[in-house]
């Protein structure tokens, strides 16, 4: 279908959808209403019964932990899918040895020393923030998913500081493949522990403790840690695939792929 034809069809369909949406919104629950029976019940359950200060974490990892396991495995499957889709073709080969690559990068643009230094200086702080966000996920906003992404971002400061070979060494040494699988398996094992102890999968088997303490909320901090490891490793692996596409692989002709900045 031509572009114009497609837009004509869309304008009719979009207009119809817009009318239906507005009609639905006119009948929707009022914005800012105080009527949240399910939300109120969840808040009561997490504060009074489960000693979890961050009620969102209690819902995510305790009250509906099974959904979160599915969510975690969506991420796992997506990383796997990206790795399969971006696997190396038979004709593709590595662009150059690390030494040559270092020269090549010098041609593209010189990395000022101060940026390199800043990257290495910020790296430990970002890693600490990432661990903090994972470890306090049941007390303050954050958790395994958010902290895992921060940890993965921190590692890529090595790349921004200009040391791609160091990052690539980390990526190709299978550390993150093992830790990603270990994180995903840890979640399932915690679920099986609940199954073995109480007969319900992912049932909280640890004592809940005191509301607001670091050691509270039962298995929620442990599940957060498992998810944090899984997400952090998964994001590293995912970005490794994309970085490899632009920085390492060459097309059969020997040219660096178009658009590669270095």
């Amino acid at each position: 279908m031509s572009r114009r034809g497609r837009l004509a069809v869309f304008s009719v369909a979009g207009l119809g959808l817009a009318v239906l949406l507005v009609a639905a919104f006119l009948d929707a629950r009022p914005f800012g209403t105080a009527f949240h029976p399910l939300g109120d019940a969840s808040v009561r359950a997490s504060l009074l019964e489960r000693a979890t200060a961050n009620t969102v974490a209690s819902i995510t990892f305790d009250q509906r932990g099974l959904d979160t396991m599915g969510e975690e495995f969506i991420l796992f499957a997506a990383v796997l899918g990206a790795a399969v889709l971006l696997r190396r073709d038979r004709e593709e080969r590595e662009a150059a040895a690390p030494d040559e690559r270092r020269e090549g990068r010098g041609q593209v643009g010189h990395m000022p020393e101060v940026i390199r230094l800043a990257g290495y200086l910020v790296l430990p702080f970002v890693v600490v923030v990432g661990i903090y966000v994972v470890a306090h996920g049941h007390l303050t906003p954050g958790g395994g998913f958010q902290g895992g992404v921060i940890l993965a971002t921190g590692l890529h400061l090595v790349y921004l500081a200009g040391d791609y070979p160091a990052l690539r060494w980390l990526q190709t040494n299978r550390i993150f493949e093992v830790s990603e699988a270990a994180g995903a398996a840890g979640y399932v094992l915690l679920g099986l522990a609940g199954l073995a102890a109480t007969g319900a999968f992912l049932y909280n088997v640890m004592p809940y403790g005191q509301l607001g303490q670091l050691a509270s909320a039962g298995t929620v901090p442990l599940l957060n840690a498992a998810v944090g490891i899984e997400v952090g490793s998964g994001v590293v692996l995912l970005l490794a695939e994309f970085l490899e596409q632009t920085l390492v692989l060459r097309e059969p002709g020997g040219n660096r792929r178009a658009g590669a900045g270095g």
Partner: protein
Amino acid sequence: MNLLPYLVTGWLFLAGLYGVVSSTNLIHTVVSLSVVQSATYVLLLTVGFRTGGTAPVFADIPLGTAVVDPLVQALASTDVVVGATVSALLLSLAIQVHKRSGTLNPDELRSLSG
């Protein structure tokens, strides 16, 4: 203005959909799809909002404080994770399309070729 947040949701959804339909670059298509999905974040948070409510995290507020609905916030966080993974997969597909056919314009992808 009671309806405004809902209207923003609908507008984001339709604007993103227009982007998908009119796209001439697969990367642009993926970004437009993210715009469509961001409509669902706004819708979830709109449904869960309570006038005068604060964040449902009882780290530094007394018990019994009015808070917004934490259930939809948990759903929104799931939504964000799924959105990010879908984008990653679609971008990998776009890279493969470019490798095989040399173009990212969906209009130029006429036939299936192995």
